[in-house]
C-alpha cells in the first residue's frame, strides 16, 4: 500500500470519474447522486493523502515515497513519481480543497452534474500528478492535462464571458507549456550527448548536473531557464503575464475559482522551485533580479488594481496576483527562510483565497450578483457569514495569529537580509507596501459589503449560512488559525527539502562553490 500510495492517489479520482460515468448509464440513475460519488472519492483521496505525512522529510533526491518504472522506453520516458517535503504539502492542499469544492458545488451546480463531477475528479488526478511527477515528460503530461478539465469547467459552468475566459486561459497556458516542452526535449538531448543515455528523469538529471558529468553551457542554461520559467510564470501568474487570471477566476464557477487559485497557481511556483532551481541554478541566480523586480511590480500592481474593482470576485482575483508576487519574491531570495516562507505562503494563499472565493460564491448563489455596490450591511442578516468572511479576509491581509502573517513575514524578513537581493531594503519596503494595500482593499471591501447599514430589501432578507456551508468553510478557518499560531508543524517537514533545494542554488555543481552571494546575512552572522 505504502509503495503504491502515489499511484493510488493519482488513479483514485480517475476511478471515481469512471464510476460516475458508469453509474450514469445504469437505469434509475439520478443526477443528484453524482455529487455523493465525487464527495466520497475526494474525501477518500484526502484521507489517503494524510498517509504521506508518515516519516520525515529528506534531501532533494531523497524522495520519501517513490515509484519508478519504465514507461516508454522508445522515447526514454519513465513513470517516476515521488514526494518530498515540498510536494507533500501541495498534494495535501489539493486533496483538502477538492472535497470542499465538491461541497461548495452541492446546490450551485444544477445542470449537467455527471459531467461536472467527472471533470472535477479528472482535474484532481492531473493536479496530484503535477506535484508528484519526477519525470519531466510525465510532469508535462499532467501539467497540460490539467488544462482540459478546467477549460470545460470554466466554459460550461462559468459566468457570462465564460467562453472568452476559457479560451484565453487555455491558449495562454498552452503557449507557455509548449515552449517548456521544447526545453524538456532539449534537456534530454543535452543529457544524451553528455552521458550517452537520454533521460527525462529529474532525479537523474540533477544527479548528473551535480556530479559534473553533464554541464550546461551558460547560453543553453539561459534559454532553458527562460523556456521553463515562461511556462511557470504564466501559471503563477507573474506580472505582466497575469492577464488571463482575472478573466478565468471571475468567470469560473466557485469551485473552479477555488481550485484555480488554490492549486493551479501553485503549479507555477512549485515548478520554479523544483525545476528551475534544481536544473538551472546559475541561470536562476542570473535572472533573480529580473524575477524579483517583476514580483514586486506584481505585488503593488495587483493590490492597486484590486482596490478599484467593483466586483468582489475580481478583487479577490487581483489580490492573487499580489500574493503570488510575494511567493516569487521569497523563492528568489535564495535563503532558507525566504523559500520556506514562499512555500508557506503558497499554502496560505490556497487556504485563504480559496476560502474567500467560497464566500463570494455563497453570496453570489443568494443574490446572483457580485458587485460590491449591490451589497452592504450583510452583518445583520448574515452574522455567521460575516464573521467567517472577516476572518478569511484578515488572514488574506496577513494579520498576526493568522496564517498569512507567517508567510509574508518570513518572506520580507529574508528579502531584507538576503545577499542575493540587490537593493534589498528598497525591494522589501516596496513589497511591504503590498501588505498595507492589502489591508486597504480588503477592509474597504469589507466595509462596503459586510458593515454599515443594510442597504436594500434583498440584502435584508438573505439567509445565513446553512450547516453544509459552515461545514465546508470551517476546516479552512481552523486551518488559518492553526497555521498562524503553530507553523512549525508544517515548516519542519519541508525544511530539509527546501534547504536541499537552496543548496543546489548555492553550490550548483560539485567542487564549484560560488561566493556567499546566496547565503543570507543572518546565516553569516550565526
Amino acid at each position, binding site marked *: 500500500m505504502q509503495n503504491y500510495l502515489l499511484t493510488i492517489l493519482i488513479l483514485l479520482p480517475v476511478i471515481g470519474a469512471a464510476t460516475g460515468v458508469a453509474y450514469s448509464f445504469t437505469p434509475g440513475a439520478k443526477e443528484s447522486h453524482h455529487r455523493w460519488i465525487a464527495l466520497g472519492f475526494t474525501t477518500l483521496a484526502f484521507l489517503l493523502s494524510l498517509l504521506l505525512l508518515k516519516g520525515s522529510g529528506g534531501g532533494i533526491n531523497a524522495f520519501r515515497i517513490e515509484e519508478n518504472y519504465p514507461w*516508454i*522506453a522508445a522515447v526514454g520516458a519513465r513513470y517516476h513519481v515521488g514526494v518530498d517535503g515540498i510536494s507533500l504539502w501541495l498534494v495535501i492542499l489539493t486533496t483538502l480543497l477538492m472535497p470542499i469544492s465538491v461541497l461548495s458545488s452541492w446546490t450551485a451546480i444544477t445542470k449537467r452534474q455527471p459531467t461536472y463531477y467527472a471533470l472535477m475528479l479528472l482535474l484532481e488526478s492531473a493536479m496530484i500528478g503535477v506535484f508528484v511527477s519526477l519525470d519531466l*515528460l510525465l510532469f508535462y503530461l499532467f501539467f497540460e*492535462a490539467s488544462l*482540459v478539465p478546467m*477549460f470545460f469547467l470554466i466554459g460550461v459552468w462559468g459566468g457570462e464571458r*465564460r467562453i472568452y475566459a476559457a*479560451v484565453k486561459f*487555455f491558449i495562454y497556458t498552452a503557449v507557455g507549456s509548449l515552449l517548456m516542452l*521544447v526545453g524538456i526535449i532539449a534537456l534530454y538531448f543535452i543529457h544524451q550527448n553528455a552521458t550517452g543515455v537520454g533521460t527525462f528523469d529529474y532525479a537523474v538529471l540533477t544527479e548528473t548536473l551535480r556530479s559534473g558529468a553533464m554541464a550546461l553551457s551558460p547560453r543553453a542554461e539561459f534559454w532553458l531557464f527562460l523556456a521553463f520559467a515562461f511556462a511557470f510564470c504564466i501559471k503563477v501568474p507573474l506580472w505582466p503575464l497575469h492577464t488571463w487570471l482575472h478573466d478565468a477566476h471571475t468567470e469560473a464557477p466557485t469551485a473552479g475559482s477555488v481550485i484555480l487559485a488554490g492549486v493551479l497557481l501553485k503549479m507555477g511556483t512549485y515548478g520554479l522551485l523544483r525545476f528551475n532551481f534544481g536544473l538551472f541554478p546559475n541561470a536562476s541566480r542570473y535572472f533573480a533580479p529580473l524575477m524579483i523586480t517583476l514580483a514586486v511590480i506584481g505585488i503593488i500592481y495587483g493590490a492597486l488594481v484590486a482596490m478599484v474593482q467593483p466586483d468582489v470576485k475580481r478583487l479577490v482575483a487581483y489580490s492573487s496576483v499580489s500574493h503570488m508576487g510575494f511567493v516569487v519574491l521569497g523563492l528568489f531570495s535564495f535563503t532558507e527562510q525566504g523559500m520556506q516562507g514562499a512555500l508557506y505562503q503558497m499554502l496560505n494563499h490556497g487556504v485563504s483565497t480559496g476560502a474567500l472565493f467560497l464566500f463570494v460564491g455563497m453570496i453570489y448563489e443568494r443574490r446572483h450578483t457580485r458587485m460590491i455596490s449591490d451589497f452592504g450591511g450583510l452583518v445583520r442578516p448574515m452574522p455567521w457569514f460575516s464573521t467567517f468572511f472577516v476572518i478569511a479576509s484578515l488572514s488574506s491581509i496577513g494579520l498576526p495569529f493568522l496564517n498569512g502573517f507567517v508567510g509574508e513575514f518570513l518572506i520580507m524578513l529574508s528579502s531584507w537580509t538576503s545577499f542575493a537581493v540587490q537593493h534589498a531594503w528598497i525591494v522589501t519596503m516596496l513589497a511591504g507596501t503590498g501588505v498595507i494595500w492589502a489591508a486597504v482593499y480588503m477592509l474597504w471591501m469589507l466595509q462596503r459589503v459586510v458593515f454599515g447599514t443594510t442597504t436594500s430589501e434583498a440584502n435584508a432578507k438573505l439567509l445565513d449560512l446553512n450547516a453544509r456551508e459552515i461545514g465546508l468553510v470551517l476546516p479552512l478557518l481552523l486551518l488559518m488559525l492553526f497555521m498562524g499560531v503553530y507553523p512549525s508543524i508544517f515548516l519542519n517537514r519541508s525544511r530539509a527539502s527546501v534547504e536541499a533545494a537552496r543548496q543546489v542554488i548555492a553550490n550548483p555543481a560539485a567542487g564549484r562553490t560560488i561566493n556567499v552571494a546566496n547565503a543570507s546575512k543572518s546565516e553569516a552572522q550565526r
Partner: protein
Amino acid sequence: MFLFQAATPDINLTLIAPELIVGIAGVIVMMVDAFGRRGQCWLTGSLSIVGLAASAIASVWLWTSWVGPRTAFNGMIVLDELRLSFTLIFVIVAILTILISSIWIETEKLPAGEYHSLLLFATSGMMLMASAGDLVIVFLGLEILSIATYVLAGFRRTDVRSNESSLKYFILGSFASAFLLYGIALVYGATATQSLPGTTNIATIAARANSSLYPPLLLAGAAMMLVGFGFKIATAPFHVWTPDVYEGAPTPVTAFMAAGPKAAGFASFLRVFVFGFPIATAVVSTGGFAHKAWLGALAVMAVLTMSVGNIVAIVQNNVKRMLAYSSIAHAGYALVGFVAAGAATTIEDRSAALSAVAFYLLTYAVMNMGAFAVVTFIARRGDQQTNVDDYNGIGFASPVLAFSLSIFLLSLFGMPLTAGFMGKLVVFSAALKQGYAWLVVIGVLNAAISAYYYLRLIIVMFFRERTETWDVPRLPASLALALVLTILGVFYLGLFPGRVLNAFQARPTISLQLR
C-alpha cells in the same frame, strides 16, 4: 535470348504480397459487384476488409520473418521498415474509411461495389508507392492511386460540389504528376555516365549523385520532383487545391484523402529524397548542393506549411474546410521530421527520424479518421450540415459523438495522453536532435495557434446552447466500431507508443556511417 541474359528477372512475389492481396481483393470485389446482386454494401465492404486484413497479416509476416533490407524485381521493390510501417498506415486508413462510409453509402444510395473496389485499388497504389525502389514504380503507384481517387472525389455524381472537387483534383493532380515525371526524366538524364545510361533506381541515383555529368540537371530534376511531391502532400505553397477539393469531396473520401494519399506521398517523398539524395553525397563538392538545396527548401516549406495551414484554418466556418487546412498544417509538422531525417548523419538517427515521420502520420491517420467519422455522421444526407454553426450545442444532446470528437480535436492539437502529442514529441525530438531548434520553436508556436480553431469546435459543441431542435441520431454499428477503434488507437498511441515506435525503427543490421 540475350535479353534474358541481360536482365534476369528477379521475381519475388512474396515481397509484394501485401500489394498483390489488396489488388486481387479489389478485382474480386468488382466481380462480386458485377455478377452478384447490386447494392450489397455489407458484402463488398466485408470482403474488402477481409482483403485488407489479409494484406496486413502478410506485411506483419514480412516484418517478423525477414532480416535486413531486401530488394526484388531488380531493385524495383524494396522491403524495409519504412515501407512496412507505411503499409500498415494505409491498411488502417482503408479499413476505417470502409467503416465510416457504410452509413453514407446507404443514405446516398451509391454503388457500394464500385466504391469499395476503387478504394482497394487506391490502397494498392499507395502501398506500391511506399515499396518503390525505383522512380518508375513511384510514378506507377501514384497513378494507380490518383486515378482511383479522382473518381472517388467525384463519387456523388449528382452533386455539383463533388464534381467540381473531382475535376479540380484531376486537373491539378495531373499537373503535379507532370512535374514529377519531368523531374524523373531530368534525373534520369543527369545520372547518365560516359559508359552507362541514366537510371531511375533510387539507390543507383544516390551512388551516382556525385559523379553526375550535369549537376545542374540533377538539381533541376530534384526541384521538379520536390514540386510534384509537394503538391501531392499539399505543402505550402503548393497547397491551394486542397481546401476546395477536400470541401467538395464526399466526407468519407475527404477523410481518406487527408490520411491515405498524403501518407503515401510522404512515403515516396521520403524514399526519393532521403535515400536518393542522401547526406552522404553532401560532402563531395559536385553532388553536395543537391542535398543541401532540398534540405533548405524543405525547411522553408515546413515553416510555410505549418503557418499557412494553422493561420488560415482559424477563419474557416466550414468544418471540412477547417480540417483541410488542419491537414495542411499537419503535413508541415511531419515535414519537420522529414528535415531531421534528411539532416541525420548516422543510420540510427536517420532511422529514428524516418520512424518519427511514419509514426506521426499513423497518429494523424487515426485521429483524423476519427474526427471525420463524426463529421460524416453529423453531415447527414448530401453533406448538408458541415458548418460550424451546425455543431451548436450538440455537446450534451449527443455526448458520445461530441466527446469523441473533442478527444480527436484535442489529439490533433497535441494534448498529452493522446496520440497527437506523442506524434509531435517524436517528430520534434528528431528535429531538435539535428539542431533545428528554430524549426521546432516555430512548430510548437504553430501548435499553440492551432489550439484556437480546434477549441472553437469544442466551444461550439459544449459551451453554446442549441437554438434549433436536434434529433439525436442513432449511431450505426459500423460507425460505432470505427469510433471505438480510433479512440482506443488515440489513447494506445498516446500512452504506450513504445511497441509501435520500436517496430517502425530499422533494426540495426548495418552499421554504416553516413558521413
